[in-house]
């Protein structure tokens, strides 16, 4: 599968399909609230488009969605897994890179392995993909874990968001709210 194709595709339906259907965008009902629920914005505030997850979290915190706690983090694995431990419904927003146009919003369901090349990795740190897989291995992955990855253009220190990613912020906020079927305070 090409990277751009990964970017366009939604994950395949889950076996059984019911939960996947029930959790499609816009179908989460406040009448059937999920368990402890969390939106996690990941990134570094000073590194160009890497800040987008935290900017989206900041925007969401201006009018917190009912029933969801919104937090920001640098994405370090142990902190993420600790956050996962207290939640069964998690939405993650992070910058990523797949080769698609900057500002493209990818929706990924962590019920399936995340596309490894899209997120930061290194031999000296654990990135989002490793964090999710480590949580899965330890049985600590939330029942639902959706990742919105915003296609980034630059990660330069002090650069601020690129125009395309800055323009996408409103859409990402809307997509997250739609995903969680949120009523806004």
């Amino acid at each position, binding site marked *: 599968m090409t990277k751009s194709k990964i970017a366009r595709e939604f994950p395949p339906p889950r076996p059984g399909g019911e939960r996947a259907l029930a959790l499609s965008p816009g179908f989460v009902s406040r009448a059937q609230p999920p368990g402890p629920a969390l939106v996690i914005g990941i990134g*570094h*505030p*000073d590194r160009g488009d890497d800040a987008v997850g935290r900017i989206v979290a900041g925007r969401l915190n201006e009018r917190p969605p009912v029933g969801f706690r919104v937090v*920001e*983090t*640098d*994405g*370090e*694995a*142990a*902190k993420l*897994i*600790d956050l996962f431990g207290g939640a069964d419904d998690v939405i993650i927003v992070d910058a990523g*890179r797949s080769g698609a146009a900057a500002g493209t919003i990818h929706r990924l369901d962590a019920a399936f392995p995340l596309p*490894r*090349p899209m*997120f*930061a*990795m*290194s*031999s*000296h*740190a*654990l990135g989002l993909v*490793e964090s999710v*897989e*480590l949580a899965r*291995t*330890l*049985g600590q992955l939330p029942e639902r874990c959706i990742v919105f990855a915003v296609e980034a253009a630059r*990660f330069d*220190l*002090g650069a601020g968001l690129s125009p395309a990613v800055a323009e996408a912020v409103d859409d990402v906020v809307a997509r997250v709210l739609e995903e969680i079927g949120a009523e806004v305070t």
Partner: protein
Amino acid sequence: MARKTIKVDYLARVEGEGALTVTIRDGQVKEAQLRIFEPPRFFEAFLRGRAFSEAPDITARICGICPVAYQMSAVHAMEDALGVTVDGPLRELRRLIYCGEWIESHTLHIYLLHAPDFLGYEGAIDLARDHPDIVERGLKLKKAGNALMTLTGGREVHPINVKVGGFYKAPRRRDLAAMADDIKRARDMALATVRWTATLDFPDRQRDYELVSLSHADEYPMNEGRIVSNRGLDIAANQYDAHFEEIHVAHSNALQARIRERGAYLVGPLARFALNFDKLTPLAREAAHAAGIAPVCRNPYQSIVVRAVEVLYACDEALRIIESYREPDRPSVPVAVRAGVGYAATEAPRGLLYHRYRIDDEGTILEAQIVPPTSQNQASVEEDLKVLINGWLDLPDEELRHRCEQTVRNYDPCISCATHFLDLRIDRG
């Protein structure tokens, strides 16, 4: 001549930030070049023109793993410039927040990054598959460090409660006391960590490093002390630039630090441990002894055990501070602004972190200099690779690559300050 290149299998998110090239000719490592990326250079420029009071918050953002170290070096350097002394409970609280960072940072490295190297696993996920109990212990221990940082620092990522002169708000005695049982449990886990890391299979390799760390008359060093070495160095922080130099090397746009007229040196757990062994708590000393670690350990692969000993010490020290804590009369001491130059070195988990600032009479920063531990260790990493991996050159490329990574990881290079995205090449000619 055919060139064989091996790359680590990932897509660099930021190209060119970190790269290691090992060149092998005639059965010997001819050259090892580590290129690292250094956010501190950006921050040095960013700090100029900002208020002295902003330095702790700005420098905390250099690194998500060791923000406290940057804050501590920043506040001590500013207080040096301003003639301010922070003592009593506020000084103790600074040690407490540093204990939290040591526990958190060391534990992350021991369990999730370094241990898999020794056990033949590709990474923490594979380790967790076979030994979930071990990884879960690591995560719980790290969480205890996070809790200390959050309680004292206000926030565990980029703490916001630290200021020049003290803290914005001092924690209540009852809030610290409530953590004592958690820290006692963490201490048990830390002791188990020392014992577990001692069972790992260490390559039999040693080097005769010049070891550099802070040294303090009364305590295992964190925030204060003279800069000393096992070869006679003994200076105050304000003499750092006279004895150390940062040089440009052709293969890296980062600066490498060296001791003038002597060269590479080693900062971090091995150096602190060797130069301050007698300042550890009895429990930490006994655990090190039982683990078979000599007070002067020159095998860099055993740094994983020394980190575990330092975690044990940090738990012990945190408990001492919590149990003896008296709430300060005020959360910070008054600071009168004046022009000056301030110097400080503190002990980040990875080693000595030096800051120097020059401020004007309104407190505006005119110059900032930040020398992180990883750039101080960079020359030693390269020398290790030239010397230590020679016995492994007959290994298949994949195994040799793994040995190189393990050797670099001995240093726990800061993920933000240094090899954030390491691209490893082995060139056999």
